[in-house]
């Protein structure tokens, strides 16, 4: 009896050990098997930013099909991804991140956004050491101080604020300048205000500002205040429909400054203001569809092939789509260059070491050791309301101060 029990115990131990070693053989890194790399993402699929979630999911679907069907995967491994709905809610984001890491056991988290949701998981990213590539959250804490596993690729309103003052002083050579900032009263808007203030300090200019609460539709008080202060050049940080409303209010009260809209205003809804939007400036870090750069042409072709011409129209109409596509191209290069021995640490090392990446004119992206801010260069566009286009008036440039 005792002998049998001993044999049984030995057998169980052997089976468990075999199981453990065989698993180790198949799975070199979490989320990576011999034939698959599993990525995860959390998106707002049913909350206030659901439109964004749909666009990103479309981009990821096209990317997955392209990599697997046309590129043959990376070193024999196909890619796959799981999506968790976070409804733009910080708690659900934390839940989604935990689920992706511990339940789905993803290799890396890709293509996420949202200041509050991403801020909610900063500590988890450090603790779990899971690469997050990239986040498009607009807060500075995403890259400053840098977190090894978190990469940021978006547009910085602080950079844009500085660039506005640079452009007014150095390019427009405007006289008797009075700077103003109309901004959504949150971290996003405050970073714009900070940028303009930094720029103004450099050139010895003064800044007046008028914040508004998120969700405000009527900016009459802000327009009145700016007019009373005699603002000649005004930076706007907020959503495009509110920008259009600001242009209309400015016209109503007889205030005629030169506006500089941040990257979010590079949006078809800016044209809701009609001719009033014409001739004002905008900052953008991406290539435009009408420029017909190779990156856009390839992206259009892939979206049309993979989603069908009709279904591709919606994501392609979105001007921020290169913000999703450029990092995916960058990720492709990293995964290709790492080789078959793929680990999270190697991915992080590779992502920060790629130099002179060519996105085909979609946008500039560059990281470095201890540099998690992936976007440094922008162009300034002028709004052509008749053609409903944003036309670049400068080449790629960086703010004069960092």
């Amino acid at each position: 009896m005792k002998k049998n029990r001993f044999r049984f115990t030995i057998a169980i131990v052997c089976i468990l050990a075999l199981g453990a070693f065989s698993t180790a053989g198949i799975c070199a890194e979490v989320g990576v098997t011999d034939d698959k790399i599993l990525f995860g993402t959390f998106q707002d699929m049913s909350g206030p930013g659901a439109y964004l979630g749909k666009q990103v999911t479309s981009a990821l679907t096209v990317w997955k099909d392209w990599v697997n069907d046309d590129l043959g995967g990376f070193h024999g491994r196909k890619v796959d991804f799981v999506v968790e709905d976070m409804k733009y809610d910080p708690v659900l984001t934390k839940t989604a991140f935990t689920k992706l890491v511990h339940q789905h056991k993803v290799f890396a988290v890709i293509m996420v956004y949202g200041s509050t949701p991403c801020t909610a998981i900063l500590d988890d990213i450090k603790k779990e050491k899971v690469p997050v590539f990239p986040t498009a959250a607009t807060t500075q804490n995403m890259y400053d101080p840098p977190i090894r596993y978190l990469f940021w690729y978006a547009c910085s309103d602080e950079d844009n604020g500085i660039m506005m003052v640079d452009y007014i002083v150095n390019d427009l050579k405007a006289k008797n300048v009075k700077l103003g900032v109309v901004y959504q009263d949150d971290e996003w808007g405050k970073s714009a205000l900070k940028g303009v203030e930094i720029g103004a300090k450099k050139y010895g200019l003064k800044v007046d500002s008028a914040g508004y609460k998120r969700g405000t539709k009527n900016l009459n008080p802000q327009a009145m205040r700016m007019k009373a202060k005699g603002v000649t050049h005004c930076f706007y940080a907020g959503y495009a429909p509110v920008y259009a409303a600001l242009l209309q209010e400015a016209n109503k009260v007889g205030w005629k400054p030169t506006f500089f809209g941040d990257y979010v205003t590079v949006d078809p809804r800016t044209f809701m203001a009609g001719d009033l939007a014409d001739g004002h400036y905008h900052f953008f870090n991406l290539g435009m569809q009408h420029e017909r750069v190779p990156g856009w042409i390839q992206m259009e072709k892939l979206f049309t092939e993979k989603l069908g011409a009709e279904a591709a129209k919606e994501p392609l109409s979105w001007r921020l789509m290169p913000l999703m596509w450029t990092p995916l191209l960058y990720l492709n290069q990293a995964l290709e260059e790492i080789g078959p021995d793929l680990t999270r640490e190697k991915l992080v090392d590779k992502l920060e070491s790629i130099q002179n990446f060519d996105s085909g004119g979609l946008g500039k992206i560059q990281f470095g050791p201890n540099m998690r801010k992936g976007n440094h260069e922008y162009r300034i566009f002028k709004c052509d309301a008749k053609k409903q286009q944003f036309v670049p008036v400068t080449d790629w440039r960086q703010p004069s101060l960092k």
Partner: protein
Amino acid sequence: MAVTRFCIRSYPQDLKVFPSPAARISLVWLLLFLLGLPFFSGKYITFVAAVCGVSVISALGLNILTGYTGLISLGHAAFMGIGAYTAAALANKAGFPFLAALPLAGLLAAATGAVVGIPTLRLRGLYLVVTTLAFEFIVEHIIYHWESMTQSDRGISLPTPDLFGYTLDTYESFYYVVLVLAVATALFTKNLAMSRTGRALVAIRDRDIAAEIIGVHLAKYKILAFVVSSFIAGIAGALYAYLLGLISPDHFTFNQSVLYIAMIIVGGMGTVMGSIIGAVFMVLLPEVINAISSPIASAYPILSPRIGAVSVIVYGLVIILFLLFEPNGLYGIWIRIKRYWKPWPFTY
């Protein structure tokens, strides 16, 4: 109470918190299951269980105010916010330990509850709802704009809690703290409901004028309900803050208040078990919808961008169906099942 405690046959039995042996045995099984949960489930399920626990505590607090006393509050998330930010400020800025920050968070929320409770002496129904709604927006505004204290959108982080020298740095360890407090809150609420105070609160809910005539001090009990409810909400908020490690204004919005109201409605108003079931149900519902929709999205990628919208419809539909067909909530369904099986296999 009479509806839910249908199997009681004597007054001594009615005085017991768990009147039947079956209730006591099933409770022991449930506790054993909950104690063992982190051992056989992963980190994710443990984290979700901890969120459920915090929601249970908070829903129990709201149940005292709305379920027992009949004072509908849309400011519950604000009380949680006060508790959360108090704990965060005490822990982060003043270096208070977890054991000190937690009760202080509850106390400050309770003090605020007392202040908010005063107008309720003259208000009822929709007027009270609007007052608590205004309170919710005031707190939201303060959290958002008192930057030096709350750090606004950037959020305020909390250090890892420490309990009797043991660092609660995993979801598993914090889960047990939440579990203990959830059980304690449930027992407290159950006892409160069965005490003189609880009966006074129910009397106010059912007919305040009649309650006053029979000697219930309306002002005292209404304010007491607010104080106790907000104290529990404050504790839940503080636990939430420690569990998440970082809080921001978006954690305690009007939507959260509505969610807590939904919890006690779906679970069953005026019952402890209803609050528990409702909180667990409402926390798990999005997870279940996600779990169902993910395979569909994988099988039909073209549908994946649309599935999010469908999940919202399902979420709303479940709540509407409950309100229409089961006003007593999930607990009502449970009671009906129990009643059906009690005389089985006989009809009567």
